[in-house]
């Protein structure tokens, strides 16, 4: 349009979607729903060696109302599932969900009377991480995948992800 040439080097133009998504994806606030072994690997991911803060997602918030990324890590029993659902419902939109490890995704090796066989039957999951437990690198990879999903988002309700389905 030639407008940029008038603005000099200090001002860029972009779309509002791109600008908001750039902010969102680099400042994810995870809500760690850690129940079992995977939670220990999640802790290791946050600690110094792997350091999730390199990807802007180290601001762990244990209050669901302050977070936008739910990391379900560990086995979910039928007694725990209502709690998880309530926490998911309390999170403000837009929100994303990582199902970390075999147990959260499918029940894993525990095909028993008390274990929910995959949380995706009750809450929508964006990224599944295989492994029992997954390595910290896998969790970092999942966060990067979530960042890619965030890039596709839109601030306009019409173009928001899942708008067609609803």
């Amino acid at each position, binding site marked *: 349009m030639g407008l940029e040439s008038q603005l000099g080097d200090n001002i860029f133009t972009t779309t509002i979607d791109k600008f908001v998504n750039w902010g969102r994806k680099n400042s994810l606030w995870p809500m760690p729903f850690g129940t079992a072994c995977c939670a220990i690997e999640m802790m290791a991911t946050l600690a110094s060696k792997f350091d999730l803060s390199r990807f802007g997602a180290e601001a762990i918030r244990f209050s669901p109302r302050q977070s936008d990324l739910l990391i379900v890590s560990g086995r979910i029993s*039928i*007694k725990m*599932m*209502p*709690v998880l*659902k*309530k926490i998911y419902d309390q999170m403000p939109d837009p929100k994303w969900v990582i199902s970390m490890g075999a147990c959260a995704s499918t029940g894993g090796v525990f*095909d*028993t*009377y*008390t*274990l*929910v*066989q995959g949380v995706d039957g009750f809450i929508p999951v964006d990224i599944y991480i295989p492994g029992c437990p997954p390595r910290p690198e896998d969790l970092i990879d999942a966060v990067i995948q979530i960042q890619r999903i965030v890039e596709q988002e839109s601030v306009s309700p019409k173009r928001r992800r899942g708008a067609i389905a609803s």
Partner: protein
Amino acid sequence: MSEAQQPLAVQKVQEQYPDAILDVSDARGELTITVRKDVIYELMAFLKNDSELAYNFLADVTAVDYSLMEDVLMKYDYARFMVIYHLLSTEKKERLRVKVPVHEKALSIPSMTSIWKVANWLERETYDMFGITFEEHPDLRRILMPDDYEGHPLRKDYPLRGRGERETFNFEQQNA
């Protein structure tokens, strides 16, 4: 085994409670006595308080459903369950296993909570998993499974994958 060679715990129990012992075994260095249910409370208190035995530490309470082991059933007059106590004496460094047959028709046994505080939750777990009632237990509720759960998972007739509770569990009540 002649009378003289019996371990001290067995001798003393026999002296105090004749006919209470149904069976004694000493396999793999683990002394086990099987006793009748009607004296179990007094017997356990005796094992704890006797100064020569001093089984002051209750390590574990659990149960076994013997409904698939025919020979054990036959031996104890078709008592389906066996409540099992693991005792330990920190002073004498001795362990003792006490087994009590419990019939399905009279599915209860005295609680040991007033002797050892640790028995409280262990008995609750046994109740939850096997449905055995503990008489005079202060707080006999389910402990691991949800309150409205039906069935007792560790019984042998309960399937590993449950009876469909994984799909039909109560979503609302739990949040109270």
